C-alpha cells in the first residue's frame, strides 16, 4: 500500500482543525497498522489491570457481582492468613537463592565460552537450550521423574552407595529441586554476559598481564567492575522473573504446593485463591501486593546501583 502524503488536505497553516486532520491523515495508516496491538494492549492488558485494581477492594466469587468491602482483603492478608506468610517465605527463599546462583553460574559459563574455544556457536546453543525449554510443562514433568524416589538422580547416587530421599516429595528438599531447575536455565543471562565480556577491551588484560596480575586478580579488578552494568541488568530481570515463577511449581505439585506447602509459591497461592476457591477479590489484592513488592525491589536496586555499578563514561 502506498501512502500519498501529498494527496492530503490543502495547505492551510492558519487552521488548527485542518492541521490536526492533516496530521491524522499522515499518521492514520501507521495507527491502523498498530491497531491489532492497541486492541490487545488496551483490551487484554490495561483493561484487566485496571479492573483487577477495582476487584482487589471487593468480594467477588465470579458467579455473583462483586461487592465493595474496602480494604478488608488487604487487612486479611497481613492479619489473618497463614498461607500468605508461608507463600512469602517460600518465594523469598526461592528468589534469594536462585537468582545469585543462576547469575554466578551464567557468568562462569560465559567466561569459559569467551576464551574462543572451537565450536563455540554449538556450545552456546547447547547451553542456551534449557532456557528455551525453561517454562515448559515437559521440563517440569521431566524434573519430577529425575528427582522422584526411584528417579535418575537417586540411581546415580546409588552407584556411590548413597540412598537419596525422594527429593521432589520431601518438604526439606522439594523447594531446592525447583531452585536447581531455575539455575539450570541460565541461558539468557549467559548470552547477555557473553556479549558484555566481548565489550571489555583486550588491551586492559594485556597491560595487567605485563604488570604481573594473576588471572584471578584480573577477574576481580577488570572483568567484574567493567561488567557491573550487565550484572545489574541481569539481576533485575532475573529477580522479577523469579518473583513471578509459576509453571514449574504448578506442574510438579499439580497446583497444590505440596508437600506441606513447601513449594507454595506466591503466584501459586494467588492462582489457587482465584481459581480453586473463587476468591477473585482476594486474589486481585494479592496480585497488587506482588506488583508493589517487585516495584519496591526494583526501585531499591536502582537507588543502590550508583554505589556499585560502574559506567565507563
Amino acid at each position, binding site marked *: 500500500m502506498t501512502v500519498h502524503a501529498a494527496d492530503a488536505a490543502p495547505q492551510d497553516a492558519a487552521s488548527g482543525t485542518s492541521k490536526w486532520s492533516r496530521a491524522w491523515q499522515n499518521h492514520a495508516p501507521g495507527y491502523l497498522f498498530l*491497531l491489532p496491538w492497541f486492541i490487545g494492549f488496551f483490551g487484554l492488558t490495561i483493561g484487566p489491570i485496571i479492573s483487577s485494581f477495582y476487584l482487589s477492594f471487593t468480594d467477588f466469587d465470579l458467579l455473583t457481582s462483586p461487592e465493595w468491602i474496602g480494604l478488608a482483603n488487604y487487612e486479611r492478608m497481613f492479619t489473618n492468613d497463614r498461607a500468605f506468610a508461608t507463600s512469602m517465605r517460600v518465594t523469598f527463599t526461592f528468589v534469594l537463592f536462585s537468582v545469585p546462583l543462576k547469575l554466578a553460574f551464567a557468568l562462569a559459563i560465559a567466561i569459559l565460552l569467551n576464551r574462543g574455544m572451537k565450536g563455540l556457536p554449538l556450545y552456546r546453543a547447547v547451553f542456551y537450550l534449557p532456557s528455551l525449554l525453561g517454562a515448559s510443562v515437559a521440563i517440569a514433568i521431566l524434573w519430577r521423574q529425575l528427582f522422584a524416589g526411584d528417579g535418575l538422580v537417586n540411581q546415580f547416587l546409588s552407584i556411590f552407595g548413597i540412598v537419596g*530421599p525422594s527429593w*521432589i*516429595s520431601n*518438604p526439606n528438599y522439594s523447594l531446592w529441586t525447583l531452585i536447581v531447575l531455575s539455575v539450570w536455565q541460565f541461558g539468557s543471562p549467559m548470552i547477555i554476559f557473553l556479549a558484555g565480556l566481548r565489550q571489555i577491551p583486550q588491551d586492559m588484560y594485556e597491560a595487567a598481564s605485563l604488570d604481573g596480575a594473576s588471572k584471578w586478580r584480573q577477574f576481580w579488578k577488570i572483568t567484574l567492575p567493567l561488567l557491573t552494568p550487565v550484572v545489574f541488568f541481569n539481576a533485575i530481570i532475573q529477580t522479577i522473573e523469579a518473583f513471578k515463577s509459576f509453571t514449574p511449581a504448578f506442574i510438579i505439585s499439580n497446583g497444590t504446593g*505440596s508437600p*506441606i*506447602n513447601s513449594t507454595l509459591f506466591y503466584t501459586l497461592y494467588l492462582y489457587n485463591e482465584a*481459581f480453586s476457591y473463587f476468591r477473585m477479590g482476594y486474589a486481585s489484592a494479592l496480585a497488587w501486593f506482588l506488583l508493589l513488592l517487585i516495584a519496591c525491589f526494583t526501585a531499591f536496586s536502582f537507588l543502590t546501583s550508583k554505589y556499585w555499578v560502574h559506567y565507563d563514561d
Partner: protein
Amino acid sequence: MTIRLGRRQFLMGSSALAAAAAAGISPAFAQSALRLIFWGGQARADRTYAVTDLYEAAGNPGLEAEFLSWNDYWPKLATQTAGGTAPDIIQMDYRYIVEYATRNAIAPLDDVIGDLGEFDADQLEGGKVNGQLYGISLGANSVATLANKKAIEEIGETVPDNSWTYADLERLGEAFKSAGNGMVAFSDGSGTEPMLDNWLRQRGLALYTADNKLGFTADDAVEWFQMWNGFREKGYIVDAETQALDTGTPESSMVATKKAAMMPSNSNQLVIHQSINDDELTITSYPRIAPGVGGGHYRKPSMFFSVGGSSADPAAAAAFINFFVTNPEAGAILGVERGIPCNSAVREAITPTLDEQSQIALNFVANLGDLVGALPPSPPAAAGEIDLNLLRVISQEVAFGARSAEDGGKAFVEEATAILARANA
C-alpha cells in the same frame, strides 16, 4: 508479484475484523449448536462424543462438546459463567451444585426434562436444591477400595470382601511386610476426605452437618491421625515421602505406581485404573471400624448434567440430557464409566454387554447391603477448601512428623470451623 490492496478495501477488511472482535464472535461457532462441557479423560471423551454423534444422527441439533481435566474444569466453567458464555449443558459435581444453583448459574429442570422413565429415586433426590431439580445424575457410585488382585494373590492372600475391617488391613499390612517385595498393603489415607467421612459415619458422626458445621470434634480428628500414624510406623502403609508423589491423577496414584496394593477410590474409577495398569485390579469396600459395623457408604450421584442458567434454549439442552440418560443405545456406549445408570431400562439393557471391570463395579454398587447409610446433606461452601488446603496439608504435616497427631487434630478442627464460619456467614 505485487498485491495491491486499495485503502478502501483495507479499511473495510480491518473494520470487519475489529467488529467481529468487539462482538466476541468467531464465524466458526454456529448459533444453533448446543454447547456441552465436561471433565474427564480420553476414555470418557470417546464415549461422550459417540453419544453426541448418535444424537445428531437421529436428526437432532448438533452439539459442540469440549472436555478438560478436573483441575482445569472449574476455573474454566467459573470464568465462562462470569462472562455470561456458559455452555448449555454442564457436567456438575455434588460439591458445587448448591453454589451454582443458588446463584442461578444453572437452571431448574422440573418443567423441561420430560419423562425419565423408571429413574432411581435417591439419585433424583441428590440432584435437587431447595426442592427443585437442578441436576440429572449420570450414574450412581460409591467409595471403594481399589485393590491390585494380582499382587495380593502373589503373596498368598485374597482380596478382602465387603466384611473386612481396619484390623484386617493391619493383618494384610503384616503379610506384605513379610513378603518384602517392595509393595505395602495400603496407601496413606489420612488425607483422603471420603475415607475420613466414611470412618466418621461408621461412628455415627458426619463430616458436615446439614447446618454447615463440622459433624465431629477434635478428639475424633486426633484419633484419626493417630490410627494412620500407627499404620505408618508399623510399615503397613506407604511413607510420607512416597504418598506425596501422588498428585491426584490416576497415573500418579499409589496403586498405579505399584507402591501399594490397595488405596481409597470410587467404584466407577475401576475402569480408568484398569486401563493404565497391567495387573488385574478389583474393588472392595472401605474397611469397617469393627466387624459388622456398617452405614459408612452411600450411593452418591457420581456427577450430573445441568443446564446453564444463560442457555438460550433450555428445552433443547434438557432434551439431550434426557436422551443421554434414557436411551438404551446411548447407555450401551457409556457403560458404567460415569457410574451405574439410574434408569432401570438402560441398566437392564446394558448389563449383559458389560466387560468384566464394569460388571464388578455394577455388582459392587448393587450389593453394598448393610454398608449403606443415609445420603449426607450436600457439602457446605468451602468444603473444597477444607479438603485441599487444610486436611491435605495437616495430614502431610502429621505424616512427615512436623506436627503430632494431637496437635494436627486440634488444628484441623479449629481452622475448619473458622473457614466454615467465614464462608457461610
